[in-house]
């Protein structure tokens, strides 16, 4: 029983926050798409539990999906969005984003983030040692 307006899907992060994503954005994730049948059938379906992903990353993912759903045909706008999207300080949030994209099976986001990571790798050595070793003492609750 989908409403005529934009339907919002509820997602729960590992920290317990419930965030909403538009349906058009949500279908970019194959993981959510599989759940869609159940969600459509039952309007009181509980929020999808994503205990691997923290709230900040989840918000970023939602941002990405919504934006891509909106500008699905406009390649230039998407490219500029993508370029801005992956500017991070350090690699920790990038790793979390890769995890999230992988778990939710959003392949375009995965490709984007993996490409960013490989570009970050290129041409560095000592700096790399330091940056990658930062991650081991990270907030490990939401990551394996």
């Amino acid at each position: 029983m989908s409403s005529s307006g934009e339907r919002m899907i509820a997602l729960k992060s590992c920290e317990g926050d419930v965030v909403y994503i538009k349906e058009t954005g949500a279908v970019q994730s194959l993981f959510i798409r599989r759940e869609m049948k159940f969600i459509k059938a039952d309007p009181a379906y509980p929020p999808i539990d994503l205990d691997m992903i923290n709230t900040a990353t989840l918000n970023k993912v939602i941002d990405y999906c919504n934006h891509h759903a909106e500008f699905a045909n406009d390649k230039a706008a998407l490219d500029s969005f993508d370029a801005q999207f992956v500017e991070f300080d350090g690699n920790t949030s990038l790793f979390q984003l890769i995890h999230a994209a992988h778990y939710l099976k959003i392949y375009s986001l995965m490709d984007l983030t993996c490409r960013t990571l490989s570009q970050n790798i290129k041409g560095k050595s000592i700096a790399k040692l330091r940056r990658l070793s930062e991650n081991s003492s990270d907030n490990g609750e939401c990551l394996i």
Partner: protein
Amino acid sequence: MAVLPDELWRRVLEIGAIENSLNLLTYKDLCSLSITCRTLKRLSGEDFIWSSFLLSDFSQSRIQSSSAKSQYKLCFERDKEKKALAHKRAVLRIVSSIAEHSRRVSELGSKLGKEVERLNAAALELSNLRNVRHASVALNVWQPEIVRDRQKQIVEQCTVNVKSRTSALDMEVKLCKQQIAAFDKARRDEKSRLQAAKEQLASVMYHPLRDYNLPSSSSCSRGDECNSKKKKLKTSNLCKETLNT
């Protein structure tokens, strides 16, 4: 250390090394990655990337030795040797051309010297003949006895036909001057060629990395870096492990 699971790292490396046409990862980046931690060392040594490198850099599609990475290393070393030999040959060629130019310069120099001597001799003889001519002309005029005797002496001492000898000497002087000019120009040209060859040698021999010999240098080749960094990494890994337990 590497918080991503294997398959994600593989995807990253695959995108970076194979699919990303703008900013490909190279063998250097993979070697650097293999220094960082054990997981990445394992992952970055896998065949799928190295065989694509083999194909693109050395156009070899068959893996003959145990792993693609060692095959790549072999091809790389062979290529390096070839380049070193070619460099040596080029250097030797330039050195021999420098030797040739120097030899020619000194040869022209000696020829020039001889011509100058000849010129001077001819000029001397010419001035002597001129004195004789003056003396013979002066004898037709009245002069004091002493002077007349001296002039008679000069005229009698001269055994050659003054006129013809003078003209011959004039011709010789002219020729000498021409030769000297020609030799001088040739020598200058040869010197400039020598200078050019010397500059070429200096530029071919210029290699800032090889000259930089400080032990703490970080600009030495990645191969050496691997060895020295492995030691550092082992000790730091040990420390981390003891801290975590």
